[in-house]
């Protein structure tokens, strides 16, 4: 028995897909030109799927801070945070985050994935319950799998369903409700007011992952918790540096008086090397830039509305109301692949997303916008969506039926492959 035999059905399913125009799993940015443009397959391409919401990857202050840290402190720490991997910069970044959120504690992880993995698997033990939203990101599901708690899933964004499920659980047990501010695939935000109120009525703790909402929502960009006025009710906020902050890393902030013990018990924090000094320096600079630059958020929302309204006007069906993520629903897998390849050939890169990385078995062309996009670039995206959409009959007079039967091919691609695709957006 070869260990790889179990992947055979997946490889066969992949082989059946129409890859004639390009493989979405092997895209390479041959040359990065700016936050919004790159060379792909030798072609100049506008990037509309990078989660670079504020465009800070090329911010001068952030680049200069990274350069200085690199020159002065070297390329890496070569150690865990609890051994030799805590530099003054790591402390400084945690202080900057605590100040930004107004919390007593902040803890930096090496990726956003590890922040969720670590917090979720460590906070809840064998006698505790984790309540997670059905549409949770892979890092939340994996955190549940890594821990020993009993895991209960509630219907997406449904406060009544959460209430019902909490009622069935022994109220004397430890319970953590895990939510996301903005769900990354469809771009729909959580009704945090209602969900947090239900959790608190049952005496449960709340963790909100603001990965896609940091820098995007709230008066100072702290996320949907801030926008909905529930920050004082949220026990743990998790976030990432790999979207609005423009680099890599993750964090958790909290006011819990015993929070610091996490540094001694959280394995994804303990048993991995800490972030390199240059990454820490650019993240620290970016958190500060984010706090003092409301104009970036305003520009991002203008851009988001231009794309969202434009796509709707063209006749596309979108996954959610306006947000920096516009998820265009495509009628079937083959059309989604051809549409994605058609856009790439025309010079527009978006994310192609399949079930089970997407909910409800739908196929998506997922666009995410940046404050750095120009109105002209967005007009270009819309023009290409129109051309390819008309050619494939997704819009216009040749539009195909919206309700194609979900055939045998509707769920052919199993999780490892889409998990890879989702990793790009998560």
């Amino acid at each position, binding site marked *: 028995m070869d260990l790889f035999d179990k992947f055979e059905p997946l490889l066969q399913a992949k082989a059946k897909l129409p890859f004639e125009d390009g493989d979405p799993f092997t895209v390479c940015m041959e040359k990065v030109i700016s936050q919004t443009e790159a060379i792909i397959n030798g072609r100049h391409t506008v990037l509309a799927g990078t989660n670079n919401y504020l465009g800070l990857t090329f911010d001068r202050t952030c680049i200069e801070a990274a350069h200085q840290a690199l020159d002065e402190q070297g390329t890496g720490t070569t150690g865990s945070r609890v051994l030799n991997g805590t530099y003054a910069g790591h402390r400084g970044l945690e202080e900057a985050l605590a100040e930004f959120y107004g919390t007593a504690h902040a803890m930096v992880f090496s990726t956003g994935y590890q922040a969720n993995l670590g917090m979720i698997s460590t906070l809840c033990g064998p006698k505790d319950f984790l309540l997670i939203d*059905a549409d949770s990101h892979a890092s939340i599901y994996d955190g*549940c799998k890594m821990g020993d708690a*009993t*895991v*209960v*899933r509630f*219907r997406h964004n449904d406060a009544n369903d959460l209430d*019902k*499920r909490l009622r*069935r*659980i022994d109220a004397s047990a430890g319970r953590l409700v895990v939510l996301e501010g903005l769900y990354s695939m469809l771009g729909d935000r959580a009704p945090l007011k209602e969900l947090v109120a239900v959790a608190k009525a049952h005496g449960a703790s709340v963790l909100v992952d603001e990965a896609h909402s940091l820098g995007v929502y709230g008066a100072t960009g702290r996320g949907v918790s801030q926008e909905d006025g529930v920050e004082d009710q949220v026990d743990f906020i998790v976030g990432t540096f790999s979207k609005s902050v423009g680099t890599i890393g993750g964090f958790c902030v909290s006011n819990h008086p015993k929070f610091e013990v996490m540094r001694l018990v959280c394995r994804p924090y303990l048993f991995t090397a800490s972030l390199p000094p240059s990454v820490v320096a650019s993240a620290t600079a970016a958190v500060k830039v984010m706090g003092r630059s409301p104009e970036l958020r305003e520009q991002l929302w203008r851009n988001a509305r231009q794309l969202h309204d434009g796509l709707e006007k063209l006749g596309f069906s979108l996954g959610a109301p306006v947000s920096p993520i516009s998820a265009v629903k495509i009628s079937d897998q083959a059309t989604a692949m051809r549409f994605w390849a058609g856009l790439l050939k025309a010079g527009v890169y978006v994310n192609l997303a399949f*079930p*089970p990385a997407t*909910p409800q*078995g739908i196929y998506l062309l997922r666009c995410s916008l940046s404050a750095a996009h120009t109105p002209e670039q967005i007009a270009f995206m819309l023009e290409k969506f129109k051309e390819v959409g008309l050619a494939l009959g997704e819009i216009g007079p040749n539009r195909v039926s919206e309700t194609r*039967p*979900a*055939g*045998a091919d*509707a*769920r*052919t691609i*199993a*999780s490892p492959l889409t998990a890879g695709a989702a990793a790009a957006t998560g």
Partner: protein
Amino acid sequence: MTINKDSLTEETIFAEVCRLLGPFNKRGVSVTRTTNFSSDLELDSLAVMDLLAEIEDHFDITVPLNVLPDLEKVGDVSAAVLKIIKG
């Protein structure tokens, strides 16, 4: 709707699981206890979790996601539900 849990048997639970499975059985496969979710019904883990949500609500129970890896066949689900109800 309240269900008299004392009167439930594996037989009646299996019948209810089959009924709730209906909307997920897009290929119209005839379902037995050995019908496999993945190979026979072509359901991915997300679809199986959605089915479990329906089952939880119907029987007013908690089916933790932790048991998911053990639920390969339809009969595994009715057995798991019976175990949860009878304690």
